[in-house]
């Protein structure tokens, strides 16, 4: 059954991505734009602009450009970025791991704080702890991420000097040998503890800011799920049979309460991995969000297409993972 599910989903991924590519390509080319002029600059002559247009294949009919682009995708050749003038593949290889590292750290933070907070809020409803959890949740939803980013930077970098202003590493620090392309993990794997701490230090602020936006969702979902589950008969039975509270909550209640949370976590991963533009800009984080916004403002068709396809793939893939996790978490669920 699992294999069937996987096959069906993979087939649907292909159709989704084709549809996505047609829509994105069409929309980006409908907007009257001349990326060649943006590359050449306002001082360049019309002849130079024409030369650049030809160099990047922008003078060909739209359908020819689309077919050429889609052919390239099968060999993971996404063309040349019109904003960085590098192969898009190279750019993605550089920027995606940065976003991945930031996103996963932010998610880890929100899970490590959010799940326990949600559990405790559910176990002790309408107490100080619950109210504290609610304040955190509302703050996370209400505070604009860019404001929080700027305030954190102002306080922890400018005033206190505790943390760096941004970037993945200090300027003159060489990154670790690339294994996962996540600097913290690679530093640990290569045994470079000082570099690990440096990379972590640079991660703290942006990950906190990003994670603070995800935290309320997880906290509230866990709390709601736990409250509902704790009121069910089988939990009452477990308690009356003398099972410890810890075992009742962690072994029996939490697993079921987490089902809706898993869905949310999966969607949040998709959101995070698509890159939070504002956080990346404020902290000069070289991630996919920053790359995407530059691509949009520069009419960088190739970058826009590639980023859209990758983000689309991530969402579809995360959906699939969530569905599979349901099968594991709840044996009652079947996709037949």
């Amino acid at each position, binding site marked *: 059954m699992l294999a069937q599910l996987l096959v069906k989903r993979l087939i649907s991924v292909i159709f989704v991505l084709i549809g996505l590519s047609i829509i994105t390509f069409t929309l980006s080319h409908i907007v009257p734009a001349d990326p060649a002029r943006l590359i*050449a600059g306002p001082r360049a002559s019309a002849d130079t602009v024409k030369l650049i247009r030809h160099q990047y294949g922008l003078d060909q009919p739209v359908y020819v450009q689309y077919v050429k682009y889609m052919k390239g995708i099968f060999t993971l050749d996404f063309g040349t970025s019109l904003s960085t003038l590098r192969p898009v593949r190279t750019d993605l290889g550089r920027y995606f791991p940065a976003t991945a590292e930031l996103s996963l750290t932010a998610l880890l933070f929100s899970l490590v704080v959010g799940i326990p907070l949600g559990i405790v809020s559910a176990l002790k409803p309408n107490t100080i702890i619950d109210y504290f959890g609610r304040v955190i949740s509302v703050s996370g939803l209400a505070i604009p991420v860019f404001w929080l980013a700027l305030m954190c930077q102002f306080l922890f970098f400018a005033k206190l000097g505790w943390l760096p202003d941004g970037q993945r590493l200090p300027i003159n620090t060489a990154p670790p040998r690339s294994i996962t392309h996540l600097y913290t993990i690679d530093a640990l794997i290569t045994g470079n503890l000082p570099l690990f701490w440096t990379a972590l230090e640079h991660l703290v602020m942006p990950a906190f800011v990003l994670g603070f936006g995800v935290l309320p969702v997880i906290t509230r979902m866990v709390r709601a799920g736990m409250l509902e589950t704790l009121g069910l008969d089988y939990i009452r039975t477990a308690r009356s049979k003398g099972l410890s509270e810890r075992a009742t909550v962690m072994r029996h209640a939490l697993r079921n309460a987490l089902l809706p949370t898993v869905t949310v976590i999966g969607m949040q991963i998709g959101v995070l991995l698509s890159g939070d533009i504002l956080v990346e800009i404020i902290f000069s984080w070289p991630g996919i969000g920053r790359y995407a916004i530059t691509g949009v403002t520069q009419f960088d068709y190739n970058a826009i297409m590639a980023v859209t396809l990758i983000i689309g793939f991530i969402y579809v893939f995360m959906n699939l993972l969530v569905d599979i996790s349901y099968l594991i978490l709840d044996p009652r669920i079947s996709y037949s």
Partner: protein
Amino acid sequence: MPDNDMRAVRLIADAMSHRLTRRDIITRGLALGLSFSTIGWVLAACGKGSSSSTATSQSGSSTSAASGSTAGSGSSSSSSTTTAASASGSPAAFSGAVSNAPTGGTPVNGGTFTIVFPGATADLDPQSAYDNQASCVFFGVYEMLIMLKGNSTFEYQPMLAKEWGPSSDGTEWTFTLFDNIKFHDGTVCDAAAVVKSFQRMLKMGLGPHDVIGRFVENPDTDITAPDAKTVKFKLKTANPIFEAAVASEYGPFIVSPDAVDKHKTDQDPWAHQWFVQNMVGTGPYIADQVNPQEQIVLKQFKDYYRGWDGNHFDQIIFRVVEDTATRQQLIVGGSVDALTNALTPKAVDELKQNKALQVIAYPSTNVNWSTLNAGDRLKDPDVRKGFCYAFPYDDVRNGVYKGLVTETNGPLTPTTRGYDKNVFIYKTDLDKAKQLISKQFKPGEKFSWMLASGDDGTKSVATLMQANLQQIGFDLDIREVERSAETNLAYGDSPPAQRPDIFGDWGWWPDYNDGYNEIYPNFYSKSAGSAGSNVGYYNNPRLDQILETVAPGVSDADYNKLLAEAQNIMTELDPPAIFWGTIQWYTIMNAKVRGFEWNPIYLNSYYFYNMYKVK
């Protein structure tokens, strides 16, 4: 007595009564078509000394600026120069460098100089990149044959060439190179390498190739190396402005021909794709880390032919930080050492009080204007004059830009060759504005003003203009669009009827010191649409004729006379735009940095080799 003669008499009278500085005498003398010897006589008679013109310079004077420093140490920095007085009826003497830089301190040899950029520099090929941020990087890694001297836009100093000059008929220029110049890849930079570099620039045909292409017909035969130290340029026609072009920070940087040969391909015979990501020049610094979207790191080139005696930085870092607030925090906190034109005017104003920083505002060749759509509803020159009278000049210059924009009369600045101080200048006069605009439009008429989003300054300008127009019974629809969309519309081929009445935020500075180079791309009729920057479809046949006459090269006297007429057309007679100010560029630096020399043409650039810190 003919007008010109009267002006000459007035010039001599003013000079003799010491109401003019040396620069004023030279500038006005040239505008009147006086010969250098006559000007020299006038100078000598007034005790101002002889003209410093040489075979290679035109007017010979460096740009003068109002002296003074802002509140702060009270002592002027090494970057400020002394003043020029203003003649009545002409714009106030451009405020020169104003700085609160401290002096003194014990020089430190070594260390790092970090500059922060608001955006990435994607193209690092100096012969295709055409923006001044890229040029800032290039000044560390590449060199031209000559460069502008200090704060001057008329005097030159050696760079790769130790001597240079024209032939007697002006059609050939000869440059003699220094000895022992090497490229960063270890190969020799001799005359043959310089020739190949220029040939690459011209044949590649990208970006700024026309900076030299304007003067040289055939790069294969007209740029030669008769020996290892000599480079000769044969020009299409005698044109003294060629010297200015060779000193441009767009294009004539010398790249390593060996690197070109090594990295060229069949599809890319000039190795342009390789040079986009890599830099190999003769400059004092060599590329160490190149990641244009995040940072570029340069380190000292140990084999630099000028050597490393004295005090110099070990390392230059260019860091990309897109958020304005973050940039401000970095410069205030001392994490970076410099930025240029990358903060809001309000922030700059506040930072002048910060003793840990030096804020140097200096004159530029950059004029800002709002382009009027002369191809559509605003065809009537009188209506356009009305808009010029309606503009809130003082509010914009002092209120919005806190003095970083100064009064201007037309498209040229006093630091630009061909500038005429006597050109008409507009002042806000709402009655006249109403009278002129009402010739064609009834009260209640709405006009459109387009500007790029994200810039509060230009939005404020638009709002102030809207308020003024409303006072006289007209309305202004302010349309904010993404900058790339604005650029696309401006440089596309959409007809005038599909363009706004006013492109609100426009400006230009020349690639090199040449008034023609400022005017031609923006106001020549054939520069309209995708052919250039004439976004308002301006068409004045006499202006076209003047530009066509000046282009191949004319005598200094004719040049100044014709450009004076051109400026007069573009202001008093048939304005294509509202010229609202000369931009004062500013650089904010760590107060311990020394050796920075501003230049009105090398905007956003630092000559790193001469710079160092003190303790």
